[in-house]
């Protein structure tokens, strides 16, 4: 088995691990770091369930080699958890807007929402639709997801 030592930051903590070079980043995050918000969906980069932030940009971790994470700053949904275990504003908005049903796509969608919200820009609904188009959700019909993201975007920008 070919392995490589990687050092990276995961959810704010510096981590070091010997990993199998054949592992996808999804494999490493789930199996080695127990970050099970990162879902295994299609595993070919189409559904977005495994989406994580790497250096501030969204990537489907299923088609990202774990060895490439060396030196990178990775964020998963677990990073949103407050100190007392409370939900972040975007997670709460997903609950309030009924943007979750089975929940399988939710961690991936929320991480894209984090990338969108971090730009601190105001987007139209059509722009949000395009920015969220890398996620498949078979339950919600997407409208409530867009509602939730739009709500937090406006709230954070101080708009009505």
């Amino acid at each position: 088995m070919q392995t490589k030592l990687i050092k990276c930051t995961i959810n704010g903590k510096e981590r070091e691990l010997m990993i199998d070079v054949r592992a996808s980043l999804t494999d490493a995050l789930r199996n080695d770091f127990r970050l099970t918000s990162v879902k295994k969906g299609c595993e070919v980069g189409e559904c977005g369930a495994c989406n994580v932030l790497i250096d501030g940009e969204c990537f489907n971790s299923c088609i990202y080699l774990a060895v490439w994470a060396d030196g990178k700053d990775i964020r998963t949904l677990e990073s949103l958890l407050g100190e007392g275990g409370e939900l972040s504003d975007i997670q709460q908005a997903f609950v309030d807007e009924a943007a979750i049903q089975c929940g399988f796509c939710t961690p991936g969608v929320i991480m894209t929402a984090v990338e969108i919200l971090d730009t601190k820009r105001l987007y139209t609904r059509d722009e949000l639709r395009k920015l969220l188009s890398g996620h498949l959700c078979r339950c919600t019909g997407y409208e409530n997801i867009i509602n939730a993201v739009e709500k937090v975007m406006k709230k954070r920008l101080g708009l009505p």
Partner: protein
Amino acid sequence: MYDMKALYEANSVRHACELLLAHPGAKVIAGGSDVLVQMREGRLAGCELVSIYGLDELRGISLDEDDTLRILPLTSFSHITKHPLINEIIPVLGEAVDMVGGPQVRNIGTIGGNTCNGVTSADSASTLHAWNAVMEITGIGGTRQLSIKEFYVSAGKVALLPGEILTAILIRNADYEGYKGHYIKYAMRNAMDIATTGCSVNVKLTADKKTIEDARIAYGVAGPVPMRAPSAEAAVRGLPANAETAELFGKTALQDVNPRTSWRANREFRLHLCETLAKRALLKAIELSGGEI
């Protein structure tokens, strides 16, 4: 886990070339959004990979001293779309690659990978053809340049020799100065889809904005490789920039294309697309150039 025989990570361009020569069966992996998917499918199962993803020296966009636009091959689609030089010089390329897959795919997918895998549907390829892109290729012996037309050999095959990688995509000043372009991707969905047929057109109008001084057109999925339509280009040179000329442009382009029937669409529909997209893209390019229809 991927079904991979071995992974070799290159730490420089030269190292990548050496690794490819040392492991003749190995495939280059850039962003991996094709290679890793094919590995999952089984087509590349058990393959050795040479990863160039870590080579930051192959990322970025700049202008050479002679104003040639230099796009380095590992630049991701999203970085191309956001780059000021692209928006200033060739915004149509940023627009075209913004239609690839979805946002996460555009963050990992690279323009070098998009061209080097040799597929006809690549959203960047038709625009690069339409702007006479030059491919800079590096091997152990040095660097050589090829026109993008020569670079595409046949479906899925490009002119990289063993031990060579693409190290830059160049667009010369004479090929972009004064030109404005438009790309239309026809697909069944607006995201996460592959072009049924794509068409990229650019024009240079005369100073009074009334006549076409030069027009260039290239297609994806109008044949086994991305291709220009030279008859259409010749037919409209020197003609007035109007709807009639656009009509002629679309009709003449049919002499050059040769699309096939696939599960996505049949030949007849693709021929219809070739004509219609050429016409629409030319009209839009004229409009962008300040012409009035």
